[in-house]
Each structure stands twice: as structure tokens, then as C-alpha cells.
């Protein structure tokens, strides 16, 4: 069987071609540090979620008001890793959550996840998210940061077909291919990132 790393360069090229920000990390700890640094750097002077600086209808503005603090959402993490992240967040003055995403629909700053597979052909992340907190964390976050172990990179969708079928067999299931940030070209065919979902997608390629 061909190993994941053979497709690594193709994956990086394809992901970058669709505006994903790809960085290599050596360990989980390095990934956590990346998240905290990114959250810290993000809009230093303002807490506002994207779009809330615009003149909005009264109802839309009300939803904006709900967000008062920088938030990191990491619903799918293993317990020890989450605890570590929560501790680092507290130190930095951010709120860290692993559930209750519906209380944060105004938006969170960072959604932090681990991908199950990467598809080199298209630079795609495969994330199984039967739980709704995971889905919401990857959608209402301004920045989605996703760790992808290099060994999990496969050639294309056909190569993960069996794995998909296994997950779909355990109903109910909600499986996602995510490729780059949310985008639209619906006004004059001009590309704009972050229409409903994340404005940025950060992929952390991890040696393993």
C-alpha cells in the first residue's frame, strides 16, 4: 500500500490553491500552541465577529451582541488534549468550550478539530461529524484550524470510499468533505471568502 506521505506534496499544493493556510507541526502540543497564538493575533483590537462591523438590520445586530469574549471551540478532542487546551486558553483569557455550541451561534473565533483523512487530489479534509457540536464548530467559527496527520493522506475520494461506507453504515451519520474556507462568487463572479462558514481554513500537517 502506498503510504500517506507520498501524496503529501500534492495535498499541500491543492489545499493552498483553494486558499487554505497549510503549516507543518511536529506534535499535538505544537498544534495547541498554534491555536492559542492564532486566537491571540486575531483582531487584536476588537472582539467583533466578522460582518458585525457592518450596518445591519436590528435583528442581525442583536445576534452580534451575544458575543463578548474570544472563544475557542474544540468539541471533538480527546479529554487530556482538551484539558490542556482549556488550561492554555484560560491563561490567555479566552473561553474554551467542547459542547453547547448552540449558545455561541453568533460565532466563535476558532474551531479546532482533527481530520480523519486528507484527499490529495483536491486538498480535501474528511471529517466525520455525527455530533452537531462538531458540525457547528467547523461552521460558525471564523477560523477553522484542523490537524491532519500526514499518514492519513490518501490519493483521492475513491481511496477513502470503504472508510466512508463504514461510517455511513453506523447510522445516523453526518460526514463532511471540507476543502478551503467557505466561499461564494455569487455577486459578479467575484470570489469572496467566508460567506456562511469560516473565513480562513488552517491545516496543520502533523508528522506521525
Amino acid at each position, binding site marked *: 500500500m502506498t503510504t500517506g506521505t507520498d501524496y503529501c506534496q500534492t495535498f499541500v499544493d*491543492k489545499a493552498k*490553491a*483553494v486558499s487554505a493556510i497549510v503549516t507543518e507541526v511536529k506534535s499535538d502540543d505544537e498544534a495547541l500552541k498554534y491555536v492559542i497564538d492564532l486566537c491571540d493575533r486575531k483582531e487584536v483590537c476588537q472582539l467583533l465577529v*466578522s*460582518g*458585525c462591523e*457592518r*450596518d*445591519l*438590520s*436590528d*435583528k*442581525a*445586530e442583536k*445576534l452580534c451582541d451575544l458575543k463578548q469574549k474570544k472563544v475557542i471551540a474544540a468539541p471533538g478532542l480527546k479529554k487530556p488534549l482538551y484539558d490542556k487546551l482549556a488550561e492554555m486558553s484560560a491563561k490567555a483569557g479566552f473561553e474554551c468550550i467542547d459542547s453547547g455550541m*448552540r449558545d455561541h*451561534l*453568533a*460565532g466563535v473565533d476558532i474551531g479546532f478539530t482533527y481530520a480523519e483523512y486528507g484527499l490529495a*487530489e*483536491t*486538498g*480535501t479534509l474528511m471529517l466525520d461529524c455525527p*455530533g*452537531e457540536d462538531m*458540525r*457547528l464548530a467547523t*461552521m*460558525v467559527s471564523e477560523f477553522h484550524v484542523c490537524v491532519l496527520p500526514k499518514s492519513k493522506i490518501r490519493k*483521492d*475520494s*475513491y481511496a477513502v*470510499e470503504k472508510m*466512508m*461506507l463504514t461510517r*455511513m*453504515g453506523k*447510522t*445516523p*451519520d*453526518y*460526514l*463532511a468533505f*471540507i*476543502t*478551503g474556507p*467557505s*466561499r*461564494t*462568487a*455569487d*455577486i*459578479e*463572479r*467575484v470570489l*469572496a471568502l*467566508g*460567506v*456562511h*462558514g469560516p473565513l480562513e481554513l488552517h491545516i496543520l500537517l502533523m508528522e506521525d
Partner: protein
Amino acid sequence: MQKADNLKEYRDELRESLDNDFLRTTLDNFAVAYRAGRANAFKDMDVRGLIDEIACSKDEATANLDALYREFKEKAEAAGVHVHLAKDAQAANDIIAAIARKSNCQKIVKSKSMTAEETLLNHALEDEGLEVTETDLGEWIIQLRHEGPSHMVMPAIHLSRYQVGDLFTEVTGKKQDSEIEKLVKVARRELRQKYVEADMGITGANFAVAETGSIGLVTNEGNARLVTTLPRVHVALMGLDKLLPTLHDALRILKALPRNATGQAITSYVTWITGANECASAPDGKKEIHFVMLDNGRSELAKDPLFSQVLRCVRCGACANVCPVYRLVGGHKMGHIYIGAIGLILTYFFHGKHAAKNLIQNCINCEACKDICAGGIDLPRLIKEIHARIQDEDGHPLPSILLGKVLKNRKLFHTLLRTAKWAQKPVAEKDGFIRHLPMVFAKEHGFRALPTIAETPFRDRWEEIRPVVDNPKYRVALFSGCVQDFVYPEQMEAAVKLFGAESVEMSYPMNQSCCGLPVQMMGEMKASREVCVQNLRAFEAGGYDYVITLCASCAAHLKHNYPKLVMDTPSLALKAQEFADKIIDYSSFVHDVLKVKAEDFVQTGGKATYHAPCHLCRGLDVHAAPRELISTGGLEYVECNEEEVCCGFGGTFSMKFPELSAELLKKKLANVEATGAEVLLTDCPGCIMQLRGGLKTRGSSVKVRHVSEVLADNRRK
């Protein structure tokens, strides 16, 4: 949505679009950018192979629609989903309204679905007092404007940022400027609260996978993920044609769909939903999910031997992206609800004859859509077949009947052409053009000069010019087609001169007639078939190595349509196939078979550019041969921008829609003039008629010639 009652009103609507500068510029830019983007997305892939595989798998699914539906329903229900079958649009809308009532839903968020457009779902739900919000940015914009989509993938492509800015000012009650990035942010926040409030989410589906009972959704904005996650009820409305046996079938289509639609390798999000998944706002923590499967004529269509291929469509919208007519007039005029070539066809089946009868005539038959279709659907053929069907049911217009009658009788047709030569005397100029257009053509035909009928047709010159060839290398028959027989016989004579010199023995069967394409274009299928049979008889003496024609349209029609026209008659079908196999166009014959060499031609070195006739480049897949012949034949070939885009002739199309023909010609000639070439070469007398007529009217000095004429002139004696 075009609302014309008759062709005249439809032409008025088309003229309105032609005057819309913003639309024209947008669609021009899009057409050019799309071609490059798609080519890049498919780079290093076997596109043809992929399309063939998709066509096969969709055909198989279509043939097993009932079984697939049963399997899908069983699997989905086992996973906790309610599955409904709706026989028509009304039934689908009623089912969804009933779900809303039963589950006490008031506010609905929706992601993009062409099927919901097909059933006019939003109107039906709003009539029930429900609040429906489209969340795809483009769909939201057109919903707020109370319009239909003008493109299947980019529904608001007809609108400018300023129009959107004004619209958003109205919606938010706050002044919005027109910067796109900012407008997108406004939509992000305005729609976010809609998701929060909604109790029902409605989506379409790109795939319904029978083996797992799953649906697949392909989106860029990610709105479908929110629509399927936040509200407690999810309804997915999809046509039965979305059913596929396996996940692999879906993944295969996914390789082509985004690439063909927008030139993306894949969209930002692809969502696979299986079963009643977790939902915190539902009473039992599980989402209530309904799959509404729409028939609306699909199961009937699946049984039709010819039209079942319509169900291969994956709704990528590429047939509009490459359509030269769409590019001129946009989706509101080139469709009813479904848009582009497939839109003309689906309108007839889903929205009826009345909605389709004008639209169906607006196909120039350039085959650009057929060439690009992700399902390999023979779109131009189906469009002509529907046109013929509507005429058979509603009666044929007089000019169409007359042309059919005339063409069926070769002697009458040729007599009329000979008579026309005398009739044109008072208006014929010495330069081969008609001075005034006859009264039958209104002033909108003035964009190009029309040629006169030649003094002596090719058939009358044949015996005199026929060369004697000793030890022939090849024995061929010539098919002249009407235009080269009666209008431009010199092009045929040029070919005869070269072939004679290259030791090709030629026959010209005198009983040959028009190839029949013009009547087929007008929906006269019976006449088309009769002409076909006459020509098959004329050439049956046979024994020819090749049948050569200098007209790309004749060649493509003889090669591809003849076997189809007589396929119901086994004895003729075989004959037609043998005949079709021998058909070759001039450039391919000279380049690939005769393999002429540069040393046999005087290298005159003038600059020449090329116009690729639709029926040569797409109809016969010939690309390199004529261009290489230009260089071999002694001229310097200069590439022209958009060389393979239609010149706007389209045979009888240019008579029916002169305004559109004129615009296509204008664009073509501007590109030609920009090359700085002195000569424009091509391989089709129809194109030559159009191009010469246009250049003459513009007062341009560029000369239009058939490739055969240059080669004959430059060949060393």
C-alpha cells in the same frame, strides 16, 4: 423566465437582453474565463473517459429506477428517515407543506435546489403562511427581487454589485455601499439569525445513494451544512434522477460536477447525510428528516429510448456556460426555470409545450453543449427532436413545410435554385453579392450581404472539369452540398484540381441532393429522413474509399445523423453506417490521407487566420488538420481569439433569429480583424457566406476563402 406567447414576442424579449450592456459584458467575461478554468481543472485527466463512465452509470440507474427507489427508501427508513414519493410538483409541495403543519414549523431556511425551483416550492409554502428564506447568497438575492435564477449554478449572475447594494439597503434599512466583500458580510450576518430562528431546513440533493440510504450535497458557501444542522426538521427535495446504486457512482460524478460547473476541483463542502442525526433543538435530540422524491414525469422519461438520456444531467450548468446564445441573452431568456441547452429540453418535459415552444427554436446547433456535457447527453439532437414533436402536434409553420416539400423533390429544388439565378438578375452585383435584399428579408437581415447564385452550378460543370486520373491512389465520391453546388462551385473546383493532381479518382453522383440538415433544423424530421434515403441511394453504387465533402455541416450531418435517421429500418441502417464511415471532410482528407507536403506548394507567406466551423471542430473533432494545412499550403497561420466559437450562421437559425446571428458575427469579425490577417480561411460554405457577408457590410478588406482554394492556388504545377 421568458413569457412570450409567440416567436415574435420572444424575439422582442431577446432584443431587450441584447441591449443590456452589463449582462453582455458579464457573460462575455464569464464565457472566456470558464473555458480556461475548466481546462485547468481537468488538466491531466481523461475527461472523455470520465464522461463515458458517468453516462453508463447514469443510464444503468435510469433503467433500474424503481428498484433503486425501493432500496433507497428501505435503507433511509431503517436509519430513521421518512421517505415520500411525489408524483408531480403540486404533490411535492403539498407533502412539504403538510410536514410543516404537522411538525408545527413556521420559519424555514433553504439551501439551493433546482428541484424546488421546478416545483415553485417557495410560492406554495408562502401561500401557506410560512416564512421561507433562501440562504445561498445568489438565491437569497433573487428571492428578495422576486426573480427566478438566470443560471443553474450562479443564479444571480445577471445582477451588478450596485443592484445588490441597493437591495441590501432596502433589506437592512441601513445604507449599504456596493463593495462586494462588504455585501457578502452583510449577508453573512443577516442570514445567520435566520438559521438561528428557523425550525425547518429545506435542501435539495445532488446524490441519493441507494446502498446506504444517504444523500450528498455539494455546496461552496456551507449554507447547506447549517440548514441541515440547526433547524429541528430537515426536508430534502430531489428528483428520482438523483438515485444512484452506490457511493462510488456518486464519487465519480463528484469528480466531474464541480470541475464542469465552475472549474473547481471540488466545492468547499460536500456533505453526506445518513439517517436521523443528532439535533439538540429536536424534542428527542434526533432530527426529523424527510426525503421527498419527485417524479414529475421522470419515470415516464426513463422509459423513452431516446429521451431517457436527459436523466443523466447532473445540473452542472456547463451547457449554458459554453452556449453562444446564452452568452448573448442570459438565462432568463435562454430558459424557463431550467436554463441552457438542458433547460430547453427540461422545460418541455417539466413545464409543458407552451413554455417550451419558442425556447426550443433558440438553438444554433453549434454542439458546444454536447461537447462539454458531464453526462454526454446529445443535447442538440434532443432539442431538434422536441422541436419536431411540437410541430407535429401543433402544426408546422408554412415556410418549414414548404422547405420540407421542396427538399424532398431534388429536381424541383434544383430547378428553383436555377430559376433564382434569373430572378436575382435585377439585384445582383458583379462582386457576387446581392445589391438589395429581397423583400422577404426584413431590415434586421442587413447585417450581412447575401451572395448571388452562381452562373453555372458545380453539377453542370462536372463532366467538363472532371480530370482523367491514371493509376489512382484513391477512388472517392464528392458530396457537394447545395451551397457549394449552386453558390460557391469554385470551392469544389479548387478541390477537384488538387485531388486530380494528387492522383485521386473522383465521382460526382448526380442524384445527390441537399444533405437535409436545414429541414432537420426546422423540425421537419420526415423530410430530413426522405432526403437522407435519396442520398444513400445516390451513393450506393459505392466502392469508394471515401466520400469527401467540403462542407463541415454536411459532413457532420451525413456522418452522425444519417445512421440515426434510418435506424428503424435495418436494411437502410447498415447502408447508412457504411456510408457514414466513408465520410471525410476536405482538410482531414488532404492532411491525414493525402499527407501533402510543403515543398509542393509555393510559400507565399501571407498572414492567414482560421475560423473553426462548429461542425468540424466539435461535430467531427477535427482541430489540427486545417491549421497545419494553412502553413503547409504556403501561408503564415495566425491564431484568432475564440477560433472555435460559432460565427452565428447556424443555417436556418440566422433566418429565424437575425439579431442573435448578427451579434455573434460581430464578435467573430472583431476577433478576426484583431489578428491583422489578410485572409480568413475556413472549411464550411455556410460559415463563408456569413463571414463574407459580414465583412462586406463592414467594408473590411479581409478576404474569406475555403482552405481548398488556397491549396489549389498555391500548388506548384
